[in-house]
């Protein structure tokens, strides 16, 4: 079977998941504080997480084409499908960007005009941290990613029908792939500063953009493994075998270690130098979110390190599924931990009005030490929202997959990929 067709039961399950997500979001909205911080932070968290996964699909496909990688051709349609989700993710992020203008949410401290006036640091940053940069950066840069993703997929589809031994469509893909790498390389950093790092508006770390990118990359590999196994169980992708899974397992393993390396570099340098402006980020998380702080490292480092060290594990479906599910959830938690503490401080700050403004972040820290549902730990509503977004992402990807042959027909590396054999 070369053409994927979504069965009614798959569709029902995914719609069920999306429905559950919607219900959870509605429930969150009504059980929320006056500014709906929990709702909006969940919305930001999941939108961003899945947009970054989609962007990583594009990025890695482009990297593979540029590096003449042949092994992944049999399932490259998956990454092409993920990359199309950038468009959906952007809609969500544009909603958040509009929210800055209209005061729908209080996720970003820098969006509060009154506070910026009295805060020297925020004022200094205001030519970058402002509503226009956020919205138009999202539209222009994100739109560029979506355009590149669209072109790359179109070329790949054209190759199916019109490709020949001159491989001219593949060569055209190479041009787009080569352009994609620096475009994402430069712009993703800028956008991650806006979307993510600016939640802790005073804080800064040069490594942050790369760190959060790699986190999404690991999640992307995990979701790819899960998707391949799902498709194989439904009788598709028979050309993808344990050798391909082995290599994906290696990527999951290697990039989990790379993620740990970046985590450690960022943490250790800030811990070591002990400069107040920087330590505030980890201090907040270490003091008020200790469980999440350690779960994050334990889940995202120790689990893949010990579980995937042996080669035979990377070829066993059961263990791969187990580790991939944990990795996907683990990096979702990592994003949770990047977003929530800062949002909570801003939210409490906004709720307490301006009398607290002069005391700044320290005031927020004091309040954050109590348990706050949906912030201190992800609750059921957060999990439900996550499942909803995951369902949307899966449904969308499968819908895109159903529109074209699952295995690219005329790709120059197809035979190589089919006969891929790991030593």
């Amino acid at each position: 079977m070369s053409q994927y067709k979504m069965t009614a039961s798959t569709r029902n399950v995914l719609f069920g998941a999306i429905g559950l997500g919607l219900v959870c979001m509605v429930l969150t909205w009504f059980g929320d504080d006056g500014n709906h911080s929990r709702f909006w932070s969940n919305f930001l968290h999941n939108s961003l997480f899945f947009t970054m996964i989609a962007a990583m699909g594009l990025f890695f496909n482009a990297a593979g084409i540029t590096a003449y990688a042949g092994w992944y051709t049999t399932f490259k349609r998956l990454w092409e499908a993920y990359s199309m989700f950038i468009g959906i993710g952007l809609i969500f992020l544009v909603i958040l960007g509009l929210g800055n203008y209209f005061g729908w949410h209080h996720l970003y401290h820098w969006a509060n005009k009154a506070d910026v006036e009295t805060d020297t640091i925020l004022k200094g940053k205001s030519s970058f941290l402002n509503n226009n940069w956020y919205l138009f950066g999202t539209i222009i840069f994100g739109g560029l990613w979506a355009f590149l993703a669209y072109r790359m997929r179109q070329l790949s589809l054209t190759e199916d029908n019109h490709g020949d031994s001159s491989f001219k469509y593949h060569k055209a893909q190479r041009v787009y792939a080569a352009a994609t790498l620096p475009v994402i390389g430069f712009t993703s950093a800028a956008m991650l500063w806006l979307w993510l790092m600016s939640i802790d508006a005073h804080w800064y770390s040069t490594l942050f953009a790369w760190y959060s990118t790699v986190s999404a990359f690991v999640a992307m590999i995990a979701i790819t493994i899960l998707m391949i196994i799902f498709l194989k169980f439904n009788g598709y992708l028979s050309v993808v075998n344990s050798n391909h899974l082995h290599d994906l397992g290696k990527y999951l393993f290697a990039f989990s270690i790379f993620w740990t390396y970046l985590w450690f570099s960022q943490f250790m340098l800030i811990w070591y130098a002990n400069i107040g402006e920087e330590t505030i980020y980890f201090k907040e998380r270490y003091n008020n979110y200790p469980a999440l702080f350690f779960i994050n490292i334990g889940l995202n480092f120790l689990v893949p390190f010990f579980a995937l060290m042996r080669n035979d594990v990377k070829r066993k479906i059961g263990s791969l599924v187990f580790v991939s599910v944990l990795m996907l959830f683990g990096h979702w938690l990592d994003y949770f931990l990047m977003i929530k503490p800062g949002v909570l401080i801003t939210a409490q700050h906004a709720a307490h009005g301006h009398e607290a403004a002069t005391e700044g972040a320290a005031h927020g820290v004091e309040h954050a030490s109590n348990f706050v549902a949906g912030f201190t730990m992800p609750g059921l509503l957060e999990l439900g929202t996550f499942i909803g977004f995951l369902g949307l992402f899966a449904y969308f990807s499968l819908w895109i997959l159903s529109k074209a042959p699952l295995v690219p027909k005329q790709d120059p590396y197809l035979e190589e990929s089919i006969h891929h054999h790991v030593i």
Partner: protein
Amino acid sequence: MSAVVSPIRKPLITGNKTYHQITEDLISPTEKTPTKAWIIGFIIAVAVATYGIFCIIWTIWVGIGSWNLNRTINWSWDITNFVWWIGIGHAGTLISAILLLFRQKWRTGVNRAAEAMTIFAVICAGLFPIIHMGRVWLAFFIMPYPNTRGPLWPNFNSPLLWDVFAISTYFTVSLLFWYTGLVPDFATVRDRAKGLRRKIYNTLSFGWTGSAKHWQRWESLSLILAGIATPLVLSVHTIVSFDFATSVIPGWHTTIFPPYFVAGAIFSGFAMVLTLMIITRKLLKLEDYITIEHIESMNKVILLTGTIVGVAYLTELFISWYSGYVYEQFAFFNRALGPYWWSYFGMMFCNVVSPQFFWKKSWRRNVTLTFFLSIVVNIGMWFERFVIIATTLARDYIPSSWSLYSPSWVEIGIYVGTMGIFFTLYLIFVRVAPVVAVAEIKHILKTGGNQYVGENAKSHTHHTNEH
């Protein structure tokens, strides 16, 4: 390794080789009497190295006062050169380890020479911190061993001590990896030799027989060493970056340093590999093994890493403004517009702008341009370290202690001398050992393109499909 090869791939070995022809081509340079070019090169290298050693002895005899360091700029050429050399020493393990894991087969053409280069570069790098200690005869104090001084232990919390561990581990592991790869090739040299030469090469080859079980273990060992060398190679330059980044000095303390130093190291390492390989392939007539495809692939890595370094430069620059921290902002203002502005612009031009030429395919495949740019890149990477180290120190918190620095003849002599040491070792290496990994080239001969014409040439796809 897939036996089926995409029609879009270019052959990695050209010239229709057979196994025996490969042996001839790659082993014979070690058997002939040295060429005139080699002898002249060797004499120059040894002369330069001797001068460098003289300058080192001068430093030890007279003291560090013979350098132009001062209280403000207490690290300069010494540590710049150290970081520069250690960065160059990254390409070998990168090519052998990371490209092996990423299954980039073109690595086989250049890995042997690149690994050798790594080892020699690390030797040159290691010299600088040791001389810099001043009292080199007490250098063993840095090793943790129970001693009669307390026992007084080294400071395990210090990144400088981490460096000791990182660099000695890196040197040891690179050496083991390189030598284990060389053992079967030394056996090939041995089996073509007679008399004393045969005895010497038998010792060097550890009595290698080519037994299937040995090959199996050898492959397993190479793969695992590659696996652990991958995080190792990242850790080395990471720890070098910690030397700076754990401090609180504006311009040094920034979290992006670890991956950015690693990317820079790969960048300069590949540039040095290109410089050396372009000369070597010409002089030893290895154009069939180190093809234009190899050069193009390496140029792509140069372009990639150069751009990554560019992203890091801009990130640093941007975040220094974004931080709202005046000292941080001043550090970068000073880099770009201070007294050493030329080194900042040199760095930006050589490292970020110059690799962009490689977007053009025909320029990536132009050997002369590649050779020229590979040298430009290495100059740029030297500037980068100078910018980070000397420029930052020259303007510290207190304007009254601001200072300027230019190297003394001794410092210049030691730097130039390390190049002499490097080239002396490299020239000996090309005489003694095969510059291209013989067994590995034979291993990929049939899968590395359509150029194989020996027995089973036409039928090989069919047979390898069976298993």
